[in-house]
């Protein structure tokens, strides 16, 4: 008996299990497949926690070293926009959770609606971030050759911020340290926004796939795992909002 016949016979004797088309052959059950991919997604998210954790740690150390410059620099952020963006992102997390529910219930139409809402909220978030970044550009608060310490050595030259916080002028030396705040601000919100952009790209892909009914056959793994990513990005923002916008008001 040649090897080929042996394999063929083996395949015949071991009858082919009935299973849904999306179950890979190396998994015993759909449940096992779901748990394994879910577990892998969590491992990826843990590496993401470590990645953002490095940025957060740098921020905490720098803030401790250059406390006053960091406090004064963070007064440049507008709590209104920060709060608006937090609400927008939490809403997008909610619609994403509802997308997962729609996929689980095999409701194609509601899945499409919730995915599109998530996309709209995601784009709104980036739009608001754009408004905030543009303001920093106009005030020369982007670290680099054109950085200006004007708002910090002479706070009264920046009347809108001054009338709210009445910050005392910083010495030129200390004022220079505000650049480090904005460096970390752009590094952290920039990396966060990059994650949003990637998420939005995947969302667009998912909307096209959902339209042809790819996720409403009982195979919810992709939607579920993308949901994990989206919620993770939401969590990072919850902390960014607290650390960058809120804790330095007093």
């Amino acid at each position, binding site marked *: 008996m040649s090897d080929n016949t042996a394999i063929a016979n083996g395949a015949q004797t071991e009858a082919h299990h009935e299973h849904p088309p999306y179950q890979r052959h190396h998994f015993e059950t759909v449940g096992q497949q779901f748990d394994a991919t879910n577990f892998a997604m969590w491992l990826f998210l843990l590496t993401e926690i470590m990645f953002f954790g490095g940025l957060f740690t740098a921020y905490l150390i720098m803030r401790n070293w250059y406390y006053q410059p960091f406090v004064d620099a963070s007064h440049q952020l507008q709590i209104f926009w920060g709060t608006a963006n937090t609400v927008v992102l939490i809403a997008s997390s909610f619609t994403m959770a509802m997308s997962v*529910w729609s996929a689980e219930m095999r409701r194609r139409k509601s899945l499409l609606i919730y995915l599109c809402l998530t996309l709209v909220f995601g784009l709104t978030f980036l739009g608001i971030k754009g408004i905030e970044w543009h303001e920093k550009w106009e005030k020369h608060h982007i670290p680099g050759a054109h950085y200006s310490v004007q708002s910090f050595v002479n706070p009264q030259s920046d009347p809108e911020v001054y009338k709210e916080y009445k910050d005392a002028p910083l010495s030129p030396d200390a004022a220079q340290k505000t650049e480090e705040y904005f460096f970390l601000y752009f590094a952290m919100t920039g990396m966060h926004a990059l994650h949003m952009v990637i998420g939005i790209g995947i969302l667009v892909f998912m909307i096209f796939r959902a339209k042809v009914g790819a996720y409403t056959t009982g195979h919810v793994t992709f939607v579920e795992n993308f949901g994990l990513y989206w919620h993770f990005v939401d969590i990072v923002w919850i902390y960014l909002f607290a650390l960058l916008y809120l804790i330095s008001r007093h």
Partner: protein
Amino acid sequence: MSEQHVQEQHEQEHHIVSPVTYMIIFGALLVGTALTVLASYFDLGEWHIAPGLTLFWNPVVALAIATTKMMLVVLFFMHVKYSPRLTKLTVAAGFIMFLVLVGMTLTDYFTRAWGRW
């Protein structure tokens, strides 16, 4: 023995979280956001633990609220509450590892000039 079997069965079926739960969590997250913004408008004071060592309450409150919101998202939106024990263990291990790394780095940096300020 049979109890373990029931647990395994429970872990195998896919739990579907209801929209009502999602809405409650969504509401709680919005309340948390309102609270943390509100708290930032008040000076919550400070606690002088020792000379040169002061704890400001504003950041503590802001981080406590942020952590509560994070827990709600992780447990309900990310379904960890309904996940197999392996997932729960993995997530917990990840957070503890994160805290250890950040904590040890901070104790190093914050104590380099201890008593010399």
